[in-house]
């Protein structure tokens, strides 16, 4: 019996057809379409590089110098010095790792939990959906910052990864609700009904069939959750809820500047006070512009 094997990618003449533009190409095109997206990507890359190499550039304990407190920016101290005479640039550079690591951990956990709960509720429906939805509603009702203030006081974490875990497990419900409604509509699509009637396992349907369809949405939300987590984390340090001593974090810098060192009342401290604020703003700006590109990459209708 003759079996015709159709070679994928091979034309009638046996030569390779030109491949359709790949993901990388589409991503590059989406990025290069507007200059601000390139700027955004550059900002994000710079911060990531700082987070990776920053702590290796400076000694573990940054030197303080009582003779140059609130020094203005100079060649030695490009961003001036803080209330102890420590170089502000070195604080910023070494602080980037903490901020980004906990942001990334939190974003990843929030996205995984949110997508999982949303898909399970939307696909299984019935009693599972009912109980997962009640839990989601409940978690959405509790105001985030007051809850974090209370939780942070209970757990007293200091490591960036654990803070990331804390922020991640408190910020999934929004995504879960959105994914659930998408899963509900996916559920009725013929190909899902087909896989269900083939008797494929729930795990297969959810991971292999439904997840790829909501992947773009989840990818966007990874960035959004990361921004949220970075705010929450620097905010908690800023409030002094997380211990600020011996921690290099922009929020801890701001806490000392505003509440204990009195930098907020002193015009000389301008570069010290503004540095963490500008860093947070720059990072936000970078991520917002990159999101714009990601949005276009995943929504072909926006292209054009």
């Amino acid at each position: 019996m003759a079996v015709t094997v159709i070679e994928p990618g091979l034309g009638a003449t046996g030569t390779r057809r030109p491949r359709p533009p790949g993901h990388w190409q589409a991503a590059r095109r989406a990025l290069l379409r507007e200059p601000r997206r390139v700027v955004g990507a550059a900002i994000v890359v710079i911060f990531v590089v700082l987070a990776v190499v920053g702590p290796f550039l400076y000694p573990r304990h940054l030197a303080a110098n009582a003779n140059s407190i609130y020094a203005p920016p100079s060649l030695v101290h490009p961003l001036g010095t803080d209330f102890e005479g420590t170089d502000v640039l070195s604080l910023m550079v070494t602080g980037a790792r903490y901020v980004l690591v906990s942001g990334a951990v939190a974003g990843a956990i929030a996205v995984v939990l949110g997508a999982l709960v949303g898909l399970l509720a939307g696909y299984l429906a019935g009693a599972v959906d009912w109980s997962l939805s009640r839990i989601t509603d409940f978690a959405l009702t509790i105001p985030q910052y007051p809850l974090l203030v209370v939780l942070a006081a209970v757990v007293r974490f200091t490591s960036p990864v654990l803070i990331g875990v804390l922020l991640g497990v408190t910020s999934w419900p929004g995504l879960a609700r959105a994914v659930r409604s998408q899963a509900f509509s996916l559920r009725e699509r013929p190909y899902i009904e087909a896989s269900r009637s083939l008797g494929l396992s729930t795990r297969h349907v959810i991971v292999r069939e439904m997840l790829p369809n909501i992947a773009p949405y989840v990818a966007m939300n990874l960035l959004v959750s990361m921004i949220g987590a970075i705010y929450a984390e620097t905010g908690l340090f800023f409030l002094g809820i997380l211990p600020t001593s011996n921690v290099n974090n922009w929020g801890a810098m701001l806490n000392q500047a505003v509440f204990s060192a009195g930098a907020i009342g002193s015009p000389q401290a301008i570069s010290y006070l503004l540095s963490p604020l500008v860093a947070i703003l720059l990072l936000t700006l970078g991520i917002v512009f990159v999101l714009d590109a990601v949005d276009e990459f995943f929504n072909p209708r926006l292209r054009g």
Partner: protein
Amino acid sequence: MSPDSPPSVKVTTGSGKARWARLGRRLGARVLTGVVMVLAVATLTFFLVHSMPGNPIQTEYQTLIARGVSPSLAAQQVAGMYGFVSSKPLIDQYGQYMWHLLQFNLGKSITASGEPVVHLVLSAAPWTIIPVLSGLIVSFLLGVSLGAVAAVRRTNRLGKVLSVSGSLFHGVPQFVWAVMLAYLFTTLLPIFPFGSPYNILDTPGWNGPFILSLVYSAILPVLAYALSSYGGWLLTMRSSVVTVLGDDFVLAAELRGLRPLTQLRYVARNAFLPLFTTLLLSVGFMFGGSIFIEEVFDYPGLGYQLVNAVNARDYPLMSGDFLFITVAVIAANILADFLYTFIDPRVRKAA
């Protein structure tokens, strides 16, 4: 629906009595869910506080001993502060806590020398509600009107500038706004007072100078709140208007040759519906939504009280603030759901 089936969609909007009964049942169900949620939050808070490293009661007891108070007196004082005897098993303490909660008794504060927590929370609430409500109104009016403009003019420069401003303003965290405004207008350009919600030289009360200083000191906090929430309103209104603009009735209005202003009124009324719910929910979230602004400007509101209670390990006050803030959100949820049925007839019929 098959073509031969009669149009039997029973819309019993008619007789008022039945409608009110249905609304009442709906409200009752919502309130019941709300009560269950409040009890769940209270339970959560109780067990959180009691799983804290370093039993707060033990800590307080040791502080008193360290101050030279005799052990028996210290035990007595600690018991008085918490309103329960700490030697009871946890489940009994929980029962007592919930029983007191039903009587609106949240225990006594540790730091404020045994003042009832309910009293402290209620006296902090106006310091949160008044500035935040003002900021909410300002940002809502500004964001919604500019959002409508951004949607109608979305293809030209003005629309693009407005939506980018929305994304950026929305992206900046509240504490960044607060610190920047405080530094700019109290230190670099000292035109506003800093560090007190009113001029301490004025005597508090209903007199002109005091009220004036209250309003004057409130400008920066209100501005910080308004700036931090303006972007969200702009973006929400913009996307809502864009959605409505695609509806058939807009095209119909245009084809009928209605004046642009009339068309805009049609669009605005429909685009506003989803924002109404968000507005009511924001009213709930505002109780706990200004922690950063209160900290920076030394406003003795609920967020400020919560952070201080946490830092001072005043657990009864901490639980009380947290519970109050959560109850406000739950109440606003119920209210939003209920009022929505009044302003959107489609929901009323479907109910």
